């Protein structure tokens, strides 16, 4: 049965949802603003007979994730921006070894240690790989506590289905905000598809090996081509998005996560003033929902991109629509969270075309 309605902060929501989605292994190293998540799981894993380990570092933790995944577990780690940077080597290895895992990034301001406020400046890192090599990581971007719960389930299923690390990209604000949540029921671990590739002791069967170093003639070449087939399939089948008020819109706002929530309020206020604004919210950042967006962004509509950084997703918007639409951008860096009124000023400026707030993107 689904849970009662519970008032929980975003970080704790991910912890509870992970346990309900069958996660029994968590490895992580503390960093603000997501410490409530490991704190929650340190107690919750005891209830369900799971394993919680605070590693001695991010690098140790991600390699524990790698090991538990190779042994067949549903496994998760979490961190915030600088910590995720430290985990990139392990993520690249897991992509190469085709190991499923869920990685939570509650983004904070950067670069470097930056600050501990909410930001969305890790879009490039999340969607372009982050680590080395020819790989992609599916990235899910929730925009509230209920969706954090639901997409945590989706992330575990996608990770297992495609044998790939999957990233859930939130931010420091989303980790702290509390909203009522109804959790899906616990899955039964016995109902999950059997994994016929795991390293769980080879008594009575042929030994298996999982590694990312492929030195034989043409081995890595063919491995990369196989990975690419998988990424093509993900791109074709997994694009997710949400639209609001787009049917009659003259301006389409594109924003994800917390920025989308702020933009939605701005849209509602401006609709009351008579401006026909619609919202396009990517839920998968990779694969970016290009196909759906390309269809929307035509017929003279303007596109207004709003991000909690100085412009990263806007490149995917440009790649999706090219010169079919005028594209405008407004972004706020450094962990500063603009109010809906500030985003409304940007959208009014786009409507007028006066260039006072934000900037026109030269395609």
């Amino acid at each position: 049965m689904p849970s009662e309605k519970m008032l929980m902060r975003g970080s704790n929501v991910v912890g509870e949802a992970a346990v309900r989605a069958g996660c029994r292994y968590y490895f992580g190293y503390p960093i603000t603003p997501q410490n409530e998540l490991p704190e929650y799981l340190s107690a919750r894993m005891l209830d369900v007979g799971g394993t919680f380990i605070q590693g001695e570092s991010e690098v140790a933790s991600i390699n524990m994730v790698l090991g538990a995944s190779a042994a067949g577990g549903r496994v998760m780690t979490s961190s915030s921006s600088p910590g995720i940077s430290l985990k990139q080597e392990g993520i690249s290895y897991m992509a190469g070894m085709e190991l499923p895992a869920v990685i939570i990034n509650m983004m904070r301001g950067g670069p470097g240690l930056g600050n501990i406020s909410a930001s969305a400046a890790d879009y490039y890192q999340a969607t372009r790989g982050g680590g080395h090599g020819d790989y992609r990581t599916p990235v899910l971007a929730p925009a509230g506590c209920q969706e954090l719960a639901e997409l945590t389930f989706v992330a575990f299923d996608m990770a297992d289905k495609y044998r790939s690390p999957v990233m859930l990209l939130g931010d420091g604000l989303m980790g702290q905000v509390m909203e009522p949540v109804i959790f899906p029921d616990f899955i039964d671990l016995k109902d999950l598809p059997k994994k016929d590739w795991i390293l769980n002791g080879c008594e009575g069967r042929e030994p298996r090996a999982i590694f990312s170093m492929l030195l034989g003639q043409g081995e890595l070449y063919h491995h990369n081509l196989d990975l690419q087939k998988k990424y093509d399939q993900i791109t074709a089948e997994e694009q997710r998005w949400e639209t609001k008020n787009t049917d009659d819109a003259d301006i389409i706002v594109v924003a994800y996560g917390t920025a989308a929530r702020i933009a939605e309020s701005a849209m509602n206020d401006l609709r009351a003033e008579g401006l026909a604004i619609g919202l396009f919210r990517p839920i998968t950042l990779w694969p970016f929902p290009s196909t759906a967006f390309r269809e929307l962004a035509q017929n003279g509509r303007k596109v207004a991109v709003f991000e909690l950084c100085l412009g990263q997703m806007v490149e995917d918007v440009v790649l999706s629509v090219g010169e079919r639409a005028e594209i405008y951008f407004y972004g706020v860096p450094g962990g500063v969270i603009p109010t809906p009124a500030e985003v409304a000023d940007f959208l009014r400026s786009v409507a007028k075309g006066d260039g006072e707030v934000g900037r026109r993107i030269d395609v």
Partner: protein
Amino acid sequence: MITRTLFAGFGGQGVLLMGYVLSHGAMHKGLNVTYFPAYGAEMRGGTANCTVTLSEEKIASPVASNPDILVAMNFPSLLKFEPTVVKQGLVVLNSSLIEESPSRTDIDLLQVPTVELAREVGSERAGNMGHGGSSQGQGKVLRTQP
């Protein structure tokens, strides 16, 4: 109907708990709720604040442009947030600590002797609960049980 309440004060005055209790109560009344705490290196001694948005409709942004109700537990909070309150909004002051009055005249003012009231019921530490209650007594979303 949407009501945004900003609770602000010193770290340690129970500002975040006020917002949490309101959020919890509102959820059990069947309202949509977002609780947004300002989170930083300000847990003790510095300033703390949280924004609680309540609505019968789905709530878009947990970040409010302008609060309908400001609950100010200390003077720096009044200084900082008074200009952001909507016209005809409500400012609820902790008059045990704040001798000054708001400079704006286009707002309603409720001065609550928080510490004295809490002392009367037996615990100064309950000041935040009394004060938080006062802020909603005049509000339009949550009502006390008959």
